[in-house]
């Protein structure tokens, strides 16, 4: 729909009006600026291992803008941080998690987001159960669950999509095909021509979309959300994009990635094409970009500062949040730790 050169495909009409697109651009830029900032901090030893979403901002933001934070639920993997922030999770809270904080990293009550999931695809059965349960509880909520091309090889992916189809759970599985699972390329991951095709095997709707086109991502996700809410069942969306960063801050793509591929991906940058499109309409220029960049950097830095200054964990937090009523053994182990800690 929105082509890499910033023009709209002939005859295409998005549900995203200009003002809404400016809002999307703001979030996409916020995401990239945050990635750049925390990667720098990680290199300085001030931030934990981090997986940036660079290059995937249209998928991350376009999908998040299609769900309603007031009633819908978001189930992340971990490469869509700014989607969870768009869904109501304060940036300082998710940042505190990366800094190893405990209390300050708790998702606030009323925010419909589940924790990030490091055990790949394990969140998908949870998401199916959540969507199914919300319907059983009589709510008109929809769940959006994130996964990658690598994660789609896991058994949990298959089991979760299969169950969702059977119980007609109101859920949208949003697969970001960024072409890489650490160093394993999409070609090695699966012999399927398209991950979206797999939907047919589970009785789901399957849609493939240009994951670098925020308008198209928003439109197909909105359709899938409406279908799920209306009782039409689950969907699998494959957003075809490219990981312009690395798997995480420990990774080194120069060992396995063809630089030409990266250069080609840069030409399809999801942010630049929106900026070009808006510039042609007279809604974007270098001054506006500079001003918004400053504003977003300040916003991100405020969140970083809040997370840094939030309470640091204490020894007793080792035992926090394991059971509502800890067994006597745990009570004793905690006392032993605290005795030793004070001595």
């Amino acid at each position, binding site marked *: 729909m929105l082509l890499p050169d910033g023009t709209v495909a002939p005859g295409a009409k998005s549900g995203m009006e200009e003002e809404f697109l400016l809002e999307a651009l703001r979030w996409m830029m916020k995401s990239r600026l945050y990635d750049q900032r925390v990667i720098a901090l990680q290199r300085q030893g001030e931030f934990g291992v981090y997986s940036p979403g660079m290059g995937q901002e249209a998928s991350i933001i376009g999908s998040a803008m299609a769900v309603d934070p007031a009633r819908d639920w978001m189930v992340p993997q971990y490469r869509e941080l700014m989607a969870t922030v768009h869904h109501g999770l304060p940036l300082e809270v998710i940042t505190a998690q990366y800094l190893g904080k405990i209390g300050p990293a708790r*998702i606030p009550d009323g925010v419909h987001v589940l924790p990030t999931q490091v055990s790949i695809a*394990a969140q998908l059965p949870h998401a*199916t*159960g959540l969507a199914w349960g919300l319907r059983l509880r009589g709510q008109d909520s929809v769940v959006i669950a994130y996964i990658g091309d690598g994660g789609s090889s896991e*058994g949990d992916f298959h*089991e979760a999509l299969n*169950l969702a189809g059977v119980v007609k759970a109101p859920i949208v599985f949003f697969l970001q095909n960024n072409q890489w699972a650490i160093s394993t390329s999409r070609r090695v991951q699966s012999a399927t021509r398209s991950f979206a095709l797999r939907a047919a095997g589970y009785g789901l709707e399957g849609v493939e979309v240009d994951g670098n086109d925020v308008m198209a991502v928003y439109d197909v996700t909105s359709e899938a959300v409406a279908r799920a809410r209306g009782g039409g069942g689950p969907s699998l969306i494959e957003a075809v994009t490219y990981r312009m960063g690395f798997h995480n801050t420990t990774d080194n793509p120069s060992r396995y990635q063809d630089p030409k591929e990266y250069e080609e991906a840069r030409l399809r940058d999801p942010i630049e094409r929106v900026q070009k499109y808006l510039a042609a309409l007279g809604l974007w220029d270098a001054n506006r970009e500079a001003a918004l960049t400053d504003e977003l950097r300040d916003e991100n830095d405020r969140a970083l500062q809040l997370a840094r200054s939030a309470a640091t964990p204490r020894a007793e937090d080792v035992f926090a949040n394991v059971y509502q009523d800890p067994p006597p053994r745990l009570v004793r182990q905690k006392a032993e730790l605290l005795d030793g800690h004070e001595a």
Partner: protein
Amino acid sequence: MTQRNIVEAINSALAEEMEADPRVMVLGLDVGKLGGVFRTTSGLVERFGSDRVVDTPLAEASIIGASLGLAIAGMVPVAEIQFLGFTAQGFHQLGPQLGKYRQRSRGRYHCQVTIRAPFGGGIKSPEFHSDAVEAQFVQTPGIKIVMPSNPYDAKGLLLEAIRDPDPVLYCEPDRLYRAGRSEVPDGGYTVPFGKAAVVREGEHVTLVAWSAAVELCMRAAEKLAAEGVSATVLDLRTLVPLDVETLCAQVVKTGRCVIVHEAPLSAGFGAEIAATLMEEVFYDLDAPVARVGAFDVPFPAASLEDYYLPSVDRVLTAVRRTLES
């Protein structure tokens, strides 16, 4: 007074709790019209409908993982895994996911989920059906592990499990499902977790067991009585939480202890019991603590299971050796 076997006791707990709490639902393989392969859920789908008694696809990880999500949505799922040995195909969702979710979410979410699973040998079922893998889950903190041995406890512990805000693995001794009826009251009562039961009092040795091994120890104690040896039989009822206090008190009373379980010996939960006794009451022991378990081989063909599983004779041998030292 109502007499029930373990199958009927479990069915009674499920039906009463579903009646009392509309959030409670049952899901798993063949739990609907069939009533489960052991008929523990018999009659529930007719009474509560297919939204609350759900035949799921044959996929353990999603039965357990979806239960976690259902709980976050506000339901109270009671999932059946057809046999405990098949939790291997959903292990990551049970121990690592259910067990860690409260901690990983910094306390924002908890999982009021019960996973029921029959297990154990003695019914000539093939291969993986019989595996006693309860100790594997002791190494995944965050879940409670419940091992009823009789109809009364089966109902009371199941009601306690369903109402517990944390995830519970509830293991059912399939060999004893229909072994006999005893008094199981109508109406809700609970048996608290972490309270071991002294099911027989003796003076010379304390037999420590859980689940079907309790019945084995009771038969061994009868034989010992004929030889003039009086044995205490202690039913731990729950492995997590563990009733260290009663365990130690009952072993100190006799000064001798034999632990009996159906799982393979090495790193079975008996090792944990023995180590605990070493730490807590070593100087009150009159003999080394002995263990009787299954052998450290995969569960053999059904034709060999009587050789593999702990037997009354093997318990008697261990007791005699303990008494001699």
